């Protein structure tokens, strides 16, 4: 079982997200460490992209801040991971658009993930049909290639779920990331369809921001992913974000732990 799947053992999982280099790389390192200390089980680091089509306004704005200099080298993000690894063992996942991986080189990117201690990849523009070009490399370097399943995936669910490792990212609603007040009504049903074919844990994300929502989503699945709400804290607090993120993570942690865990 991968380090990421392991992190779901015996409790509901809370996955937090920040964008690398927003507002600078040093703060990103502190943000990730703060989230881990506040109780996040996994931290997703978004590699900024010029055109983040799967993301809503909050993360788009973070990507713009992070790419003040569009020539930001990807090597600098691996250097930040190296620094994070000196301070925490929390499982790390990159949220990255495929073009960035392609330009760095599939072999080189996945090898560097292994070398610096990244545990998995979420690639929003790499659907099941195209994963074959990258999967040999993630397999070789022991990375989880975490798939997304949406409430409209329907008949596609079994094939996607069967190939999943790490966890399955269940998208709570149609459209892009961002904070929302309501979620698709068939989430529980979709979780059931996934559970029918795999033991890989399921975490729900897209739009979750309040502690109550986090608890409700964690209740439906194995965990909850909070992206835009974390990124908004960084937007509002800049270099002072780490302390605020830690507080927020503690609040979500408590909410998620309020959920009783069924014995397997």
């Amino acid at each position, binding site marked *: 079982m991968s380090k990421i799947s392991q992190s779901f053992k015996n409790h509901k999982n809370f996955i937090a997200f920040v964008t690398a280099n927003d507002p600078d790389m040093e703060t990103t390192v502190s943000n990730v460490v703060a989230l881990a200390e506040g109780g996040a089980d996994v931290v997703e680091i978004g590699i900024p992209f*010029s055109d983040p089509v799967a993301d809503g306004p909050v993360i788009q704005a973070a990507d713009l801040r992070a790419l003040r200099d569009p*020539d930001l080298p*990807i090597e600098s993000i691996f250097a930040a991971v190296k620094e994070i690894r000196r301070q925490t063992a929390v499982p790390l996942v990159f949220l990255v658009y*495929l*073009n960035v991986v392609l330009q760095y080189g599939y072999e080189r990117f996945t090898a560097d993930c292994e070398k610096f201690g990244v545990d998995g990849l979420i690639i929003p*523009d790499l659907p099941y049909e195209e994963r074959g070009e990258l999967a040999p490399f993630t397999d070789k370097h022991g990375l989880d290639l975490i798939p997304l399943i*949406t409430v*409209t995936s329907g008949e*596609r669910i079994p094939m996607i779920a069967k190939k999943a490792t790490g966890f399955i990212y269940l998208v709570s609603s*149609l459209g892009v990331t961002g904070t929302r007040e309501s979620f698709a009504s068939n989430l529980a049903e979709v979780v059931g369809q996934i559970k029918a074919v795999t033991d890989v844990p399921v975490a729900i994300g897209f739009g979750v921001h309040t502690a109550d929502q986090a608890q409700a989503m964690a209740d439906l699945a194995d965990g909850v992913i909070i992206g835009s709400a974390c990124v908004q804290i960084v937007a509002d607090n800049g270099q002072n974000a780490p302390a605020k993120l830690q507080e927020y993570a503690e609040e979500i942690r408590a909410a998620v732990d309020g959920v009783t865990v069924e014995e397997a």
Partner: protein
Amino acid sequence: METEYKTKKQAGRFLEYGGQYVPETLMNELNKMADVYQEAKADPDFQAELADLLANYANRPSLLYYAKNMTEDLGGAQIYFKREDLNHTGAHKINNVIGQALLAKRMGKKRLIAETGAGQHGVATATIAALFGLECEVFMGKEDTDRQRLNVYRMELLGAKVHAVTSGSMVLKDAINAALQDFAARPEDTFYVMGSATGPHPYPEMVRDFQSVISQESKQQIQDQLGRLPDKVIACVGGGSNAIGSFAHYIDHPEVDLIGVEAAGKGVDTDLTAATIEKGRLGVFHGMKSLFLQNDSGQINPVYSISAGLDYPGVGPEHAALAAEHRAQYVGITDDEAVDAFEYIAKQEGIIAAIESCHAVAYVQKLAPTLPKDQVIVCTLSGRGDKDVAAIAKYRGVEIHE
């Protein structure tokens, strides 16, 4: 003898280019679209309805016009223009929009969305939405809504709602991002009418098919007029829809040279360019694997051309494949050369052609004199230039007050 065109191996792929690099949210909808399209393609009723609209609404076939004055003035190859500028709405865009809108109806969709740069594709989509009684929303970068107010008003006049996109660099690529996002949020009642032979499968193939009417006609017309095929077929390339439509029926005739003309902006070797095939690298963006103007880290570059319709950082996957196989050749034309051609064709032939099309015309001006008189060039005039008159005047330092 016809040789087999080798790039059509796998659905949605042209060599390694193409594919469906989109969020999972869109996969079911795109697969459904691909299936319905295959059915429609084989359905005589669909084809008959398409042919009827092309003939009786869009004003097809478009003329294949012998440019006698230019031929004499340039003193080389014989020059023919395929007059897509004479179509209803003034450009080739309508061919594709009619096809996709019919497909949308077949799929039971109630709402068409589209991206647009200069506004040509948006106007064409708004036009068909009005005709079919469908809702229409057009995404257009804020930079472009400011520059092209007349086209914004035109779309509104046709009943469409225009969204000024304020994310990213607020131009065409951002409008495509916004349209893809809207499509992902409302796939159940919405059809995204893609404006060029770009994006995820099935768009590149579908748009190619709908634009192929250009070369289907021109091949017949040149046979009728000269009893032979042309030596060169030339068209401008933004995303590549008018060019792929102009090439399609000649691809299997290797004796016909295919030439795509890209916008070099201030020059292919400057940063202010949109010459994707000459300067781009393999990448994945807007749902397709193709060639893109990008930096070393894989961030998509801002691009530049005087022509809003060619101002795109990528190119359709079939062009990337045709270039890789050396079946087609791609050249760059600068702003200055295109503006000169805009004036030249107006004075020589009495045709005000779109600044996009004038990139192709500028290359004809260069090429024709180097060829013997018995050679034949067919160049596509993708659109008419009324929309560009004010901008060209400004480029020449002439103040116009309306």
